[in-house]
């Protein structure tokens, strides 16, 4: 029963993205065959494409959530993971390729961006290691944190092995041999394992406490097929196997084949299935519509003001483009699947070389469903920025070319964000790939809004007061707040104009509106009036989602740790020196 919930969890948790792998093989008890491996991730379609492209697997006909790699199925399901496979009881899976050096060169040339291949180097920096007497090996992870070993074993090409972590590898391998069959054997006389047809089950001594249980990790479980599940279950019961789910046809099974779950040594979750197993149909996950604007009564602070206090994040809004795609309809809502795919693309583009595992586990991206909003701009209603003025067009035409980072002369050339100064009054509220938290603390007449990114804090006073004089201007300006019903309206004045949002001028007028529209949603609207740049005002909107329970802001000591600045400038000076040297040489 518990196991079934692995797969259901995605819908229960409301579109907690990420998927897990199920690896499945065909076997019978004492002749069981590995049937499938299940991988949890955020987009089954993308995973199918990834495994087709990089590991020469083939899409299972009629399914968008499974590939077959030789005899082994890898099934993907959308679910929440708590981490990659490394360090869990199934550390990694292995594939054999005919020419490992060529394969790694290919993957290296693909790079991390977009494809999400992460190469793991050995201590000496090499990608490939030749183990004398065995074969060449290399490691990568897929975009969802599944560790994959690539080997060059001429004996078997394609899916090659499953590698376990175990506190007692000998006992673990004996257990598999006893319960699921296979043949106790030694791979090239060097690695003890259990051989199931062409596929090896290997185990490494785990010395760092106990390995993590697999359920909830990217390799969620492995599956074995038996000829008669009921008979196999009876035999397993005699062996005191720990059943987590008795044989049954799962609710949304694609066939009438039964499935059971057993728990292997070290916390490996194992599915045992009947012939004809075709996986489980995933319920489409949907965005959280539980917040009804009409019914919601905004809570008050003890002193009677609308209460916005707590930790909020813009994670759900990450990936919403500012402008709607040209030609898109005005309704402009995405399906949850489209939204998930969009965030996947958007976050991958903005995390550069970081991997998805890090994003999803460390950043907690999976905690909120991605917004289905088509674009941030709500006014003009076509979702497009208004026409720019002639004067602004002239300004852009005559602007000096942008200085690329590798030419940066001083920090000024790199911009205020890279310098850890500010993302500017409009930009500071925008979703960022990491450190997306927003904390609000109120006292009577004052609201402090703290953005985690670069730890920018504004105190908005809602009392009518004298503002800064004309002679005092700051990066984020002087925030004048007032309550209009339950909406906090903030006029930002006295901006120093030293940052620009998409070309905005020093005379930009910024108005922000915060409304709590549900227990977990804070609607944020911003209006930019800048007649020097745009021919009419425009407004954008997105929601912050509450995440009080498990999140506190991290101190983002950006400037204190700005090694990127030192590195970028020193790289630029190195390029200068090299060019000077080349010029001298040519003379």
């Amino acid at each position, binding site marked *: 029963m518990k196991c079934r919930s692995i797969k259901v969890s995605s819908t229960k948790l409301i579109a907690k993205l990420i998927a897990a792998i199920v690896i499945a093989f065909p076997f019978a008890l004492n002749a069981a065959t590995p049937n499938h491996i299940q991988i949890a991730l955020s987009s089954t379609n993308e995973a199918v494409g990834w495994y087709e492209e990089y590991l020469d697997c083939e899409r299972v006909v009629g399914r968008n959530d499974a590939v077959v790699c030789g005899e082994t199925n890898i099934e993907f399901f959308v679910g929440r993971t708590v981490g990659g496979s490394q360090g869990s009881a199934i550390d990694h899976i292995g594939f054999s390729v005919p020419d490992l050096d060529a394969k790694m060169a290919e993957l290296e040339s693909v790079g991390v961006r977009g494809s999400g291949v992460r190469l793991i180097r050995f201590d000496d920096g090499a990608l490939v290691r030749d183990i004398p007497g065995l074969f060449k090996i290399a490691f990568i992870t897929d975009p969802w944190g599944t560790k994959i070993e690539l080997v060059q074993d001429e004996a078997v090409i394609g899916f090659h092995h499953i590698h376990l972590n175990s506190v007692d590898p000998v006992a673990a391998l004996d257990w598999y041999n006893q319960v699921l069959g296979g043949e106790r054997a030694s791979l090239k006389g060097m690695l003890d394992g259990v051989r199931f047809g062409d596929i090896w089950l290997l185990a490494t001594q785990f010395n760092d406490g106990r390995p993590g249980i697999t359920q909830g990790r990217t390799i969620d479980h492995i599956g074995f097929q038996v000829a008669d599940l009921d008979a196999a279950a009876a035999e397993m019961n005699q062996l005191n196997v720990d059943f987590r789910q008795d044989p049954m046809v799962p609710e949304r099974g694609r066939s009438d084949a039964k499935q059971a779950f057993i728990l292997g040594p070290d916390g490996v979750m194992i599915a045992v299935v009947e012939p004809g197993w075709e996986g489980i149909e995933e319920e489409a996950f949907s965005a959280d519509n539980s917040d009804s604007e009409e019914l919601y009564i905004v809570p008050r*602070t*003890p*002193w009677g003001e609308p*209460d916005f*206090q707590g930790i909020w994040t813009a994670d759900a809004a990450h990936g919403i483009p500012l402008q709607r795609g040209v030609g898109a309809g005005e309704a402009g809502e995405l399906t949850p699947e489209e939204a998930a795919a969009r965030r996947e693309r958007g976050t991958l583009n903005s995390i550069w070389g970081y991997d998805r595992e890090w994003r999803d586990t460390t950043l907690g991206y999976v905690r909120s469903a991605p917004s289905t909003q088509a674009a941030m701009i709500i006014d003009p209603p076509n979702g497009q920025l208004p026409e720019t003025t002639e004067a602004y067009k002239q300004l852009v035409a005559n602007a000096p070319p942008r200085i690329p980072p590798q030419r940066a*002369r*001083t*920090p*000024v*050339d790199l911009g205020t964000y890279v*310098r*850890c*100064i*500010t993302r500017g009054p409009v930009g500071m509220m925008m979703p960022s790939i990491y450190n997306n938290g927003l*904390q609000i*603390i*109120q*006292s*009577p007449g*004052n609201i*402090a809004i*703290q953005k985690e990114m670069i*730890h*920018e*804090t*504004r*105190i908005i*006073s809602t009392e009518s*007061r*004298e*503002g*800064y004089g004309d002679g*005092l201007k*700051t*990066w*984020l300006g*002087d925030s004048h707040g007032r309550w209009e019903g339950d909406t906090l309206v903030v006029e930002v004045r006295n901006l120093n104009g030293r940052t620009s949002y998409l070309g905005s001028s020093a005379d930009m007028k910024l108005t922000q509106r915060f409304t709590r529209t549900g227990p977990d949603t804070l609607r944020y609207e911003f209006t930019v009036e800048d007649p020097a740049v745009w021919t009419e005002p425009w407004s954008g909107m997105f929601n912050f989602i509450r995440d009080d329970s498990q999140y*506190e*802001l*991290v*101190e983002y*000591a950006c*400037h*204190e740790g700005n090694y990127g*600045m*030192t590195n970028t*400038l*020193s790289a*630029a*000076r190195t390029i*200068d020196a090299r060019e000077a040297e080349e010029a001298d040489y040519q003379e």
Partner: protein
Amino acid sequence: MIIRLKPTVFLPFKAFLAASLLSISSIAQEIGNYEPEQAWDGNPDINGVWQAMGTAHWDLQDHEASAGLPEMGAIGAVPPGQGVVVGGEIPYQDWAIEQKQGPKWDSRPTGDPETKCYLPGVPRATYLPYPFQILQGTDKMMIVYGFAEANRTIHMNVENPEPAPLDTWMGRSHGHWEGNTLVVDARGFTGEAWFDRAGNFASSSLIVTERYTPISADALLYEATIEDPTVFTRPWQIRMPLYRRLEPNARVIEYKCVEFSEEILYGHLMKREESED
């Protein structure tokens, strides 16, 4: 990092606490039994914009006037000032006093984290010469400082705080009320912050126990007990009043100082002749 005091350190600390409580009560007698305005929850209302006066930001201890950077003339010079350390002495261990008087003192012009516009840490943020604002929320308080946009969240709703998940410049703060005094336990520091421009310092073992007590409508008594068995031989205390900024439009003004630190930090990597900004 949290290092618990060994019993040998802890016992004298108890005696020290008793002594400091006596002196606090004598101050309270001098001030009179001030009954502060109450916030919504019946605790003292210490919302508002406050600022320390004096020269503790130059040196926590008694100090004479001394020269600063010559090109700044009298503006850059250090004004004389009376110390804020109770008893006058900072009880450094031998190695630490050498650090403070040697490398830290000598490196002040470029080594002081304030020069570099780094987050000031606790208690230094309190007595930097800028206003800060206290917001008493429903289950957390926030102190927002102008310098380097530093801020602290004071968790009032956690009885048994977990250790800080990671060390930070401003540490992790948990508070509770003892009568009219807000007591804040701050720990989980990186150990890189300094206490003042004179190079007084602590390590990541630092635990600061702060006490904010209203002593009039417009003043708080600020006391901070500093424990760090790695650096000091015993806990010690600083004490100073904090004054309400009475200007009707007093605000904490964002002081983003990064750009003024870049010459010190990156000057050696800049290409100057073509640079226009």
